[in-house]
C-alpha cells in the first residue's frame, strides 16, 4: 500500500518535470483504484455500478486540469483522493441522489481485487460531439487513432504547437461541459 503511494508521488514528480511516459504510467496505475472506489460509491447510493467509468473519466480530467495545485513536496495520494471524493459526490448529485459517501472509501482502496472496466463510458464521448470540429478531430486522432502530436499535426496540416493548444482547449472545454451538464 505504502510503496504504491510512494511510487505514485515519484511518478507525479517526474510527470510535472515533463516526463509524459511517467504521467501515462501514473494515470494507468491510479485508474483501477479510482474505479473500485467509484463502484463502491455507486453501490452505496443504490445506483448501477456500471456507470463507474463515467466517474473515473471525470476524475481523470479533473486531476489533469488541476495538477498545478498539487504540491510536489506533499504525497500524491491525499490530493488525488480529495479530488476523486468530490467528483464522485458531484456525479452522484447529478444523478439526483442524496449523497452518502464514506470518507474512508478512498483511504484504503488497494486492498481489494482491481475492478475490471465495465460498461464503456458514454458522457465524455457524448460531449466530445459538441466540441468545435477542429478540437474534436484532434482529440479523436490522439485518443482513438492513437496518433502522436506530430502525426496529428501532419494529418491536419497544422503546426505541433497549434495541435497542442487545440488539444488542451478541447480537454478543458470537455471538462467544462461535463461539469455544466
Amino acid at each position: 500500500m505504502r510503496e504504491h503511494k510512494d511510487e505514485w508521488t515519484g511518478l507525479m514528480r517526474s510527470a510535472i518535470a515533463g516526463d509524459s511516459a511517467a504521467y501515462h504510467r501514473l494515470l494507468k496505475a491510479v485508474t483501477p483504484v479510482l474505479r473500485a472506489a467509484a463502484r463502491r460509491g455507486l453501490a452505496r447510493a443504490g445506483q448501477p455500478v456500471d456507470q463507474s467509468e463515467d466517474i473515473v473519466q471525470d476524475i481523470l480530467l479533473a486531476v489533469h486540469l488541476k495538477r498545478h495545485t498539487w504540491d510536489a513536496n506533499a504525497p500524491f495520494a491525499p490530493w488525488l483522493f480529495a479530488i476523486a471524493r468530490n467528483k464522485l459526490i458531484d456525479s452522484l448529485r447529478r444523478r439526483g441522489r442524496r449523497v452518502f459517501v464514506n470518507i474512508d472509501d478512498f483511504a484504503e482502496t488497494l486492498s481489494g481485487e482491481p475492478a475490471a472496466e465495465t460498461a464503456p463510458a458514454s458522457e465524455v464521448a457524448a460531449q466530445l460531439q459538441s466540441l468545435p470540429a477542429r478540437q474534436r478531430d484532434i482529440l479523436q486522432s490522439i485518443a482513438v487513432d492513437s496518433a502522436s502530436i506530430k502525426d496529428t499535426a501532419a494529418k491536419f496540416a497544422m503546426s505541433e504547437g497549434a495541435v497542442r493548444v487545440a488539444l488542451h482547449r478541447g480537454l478543458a472545454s470537455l471538462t467544462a461541459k461535463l461539469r455544466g451538464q
Partner: protein
Amino acid sequence: METDQLIRTLAADNTHRERPVGFVLALALLAAAPVSAAIFFAELGVRPDVMAAMRNPFFDLKFAVTLALASSAIAVSLHLSRPEASLRGFGWLLLIPAGLLVAGISGEMMMPQRMPIMMRLMGRNSMVCLMAIPAMSLPLLAAALVGLRHGAPTRPAVTGAIAGLLSAGLAAMLYAAHCTDDSPLFVFFLRFTPPAPAPRRSACGGSAAPVGRSRAAAVRKWPCRPADQHGPCLRGRRAC
C-alpha cells in the same frame, strides 16, 4: 471513449503547464488594485495632515492591522486552493491581526484620553468608512475569486469567506490613509463592521452550508451547487 484512450490523450497534453495559483492570484489583484486606488483618489484622497500623522503610532498601527489581515488571508486562501487542504493549522494565522488590534486597544486604554470612548469607537466619519471600504473591496474581491478559482478549492464557502477578508483587509488599508480616526477602538469598529458583510456576501449562502458538520456522520454534502438549493452562485462552484 475508452478510459485508456482518455489516459493516452491526457498524457499527450502533459507538456501544457498551468501557472501556479499564487501567480494568478497576484496578477488578478494587481489588475484590480488600480480600480480600487482610483475609487480612493476620486472619492477620498489621502488625509491632509498625513506627514504629522505618521509620527502617531496609532496611525501606523492601522496599517499594521489591515496589512496583517490581508496577508494572513492571502496565505490561508492559497492553502485552501489545494483540494486536500483543511483549515487546521492555518486558521490561527487569522488571529494575528486580531491580536495586534487587542494589543493596540490595551495600549490606548492606558494613555490619558481627550475624547470620550464612544467618540473614539464610532469615529467622526464612520458612515463614509462603511460605504468606502466595501466599495473599494469589490474589485479586489472579484480579483481574488478569479485567482482562487484557478486553484481547486473544495470548500467554496470557506474559501469565498477568506477571499472576502482578503479584499476587505486591502481596502481597509487604503482607507486608513484617508481616515483621521486613529483610535484602535475605531479600527476595531471598522475592522468588524464593513468587512463582515464581505465574507458573507462572497460565501454565497454559507449559512446553509453544512461544511464540516456532517463529517462525523460520514455524510458529505457540499455547499453551493448552482443548480439546486442556493440559486445562482457562480463563485460557490468548486473548481475541481
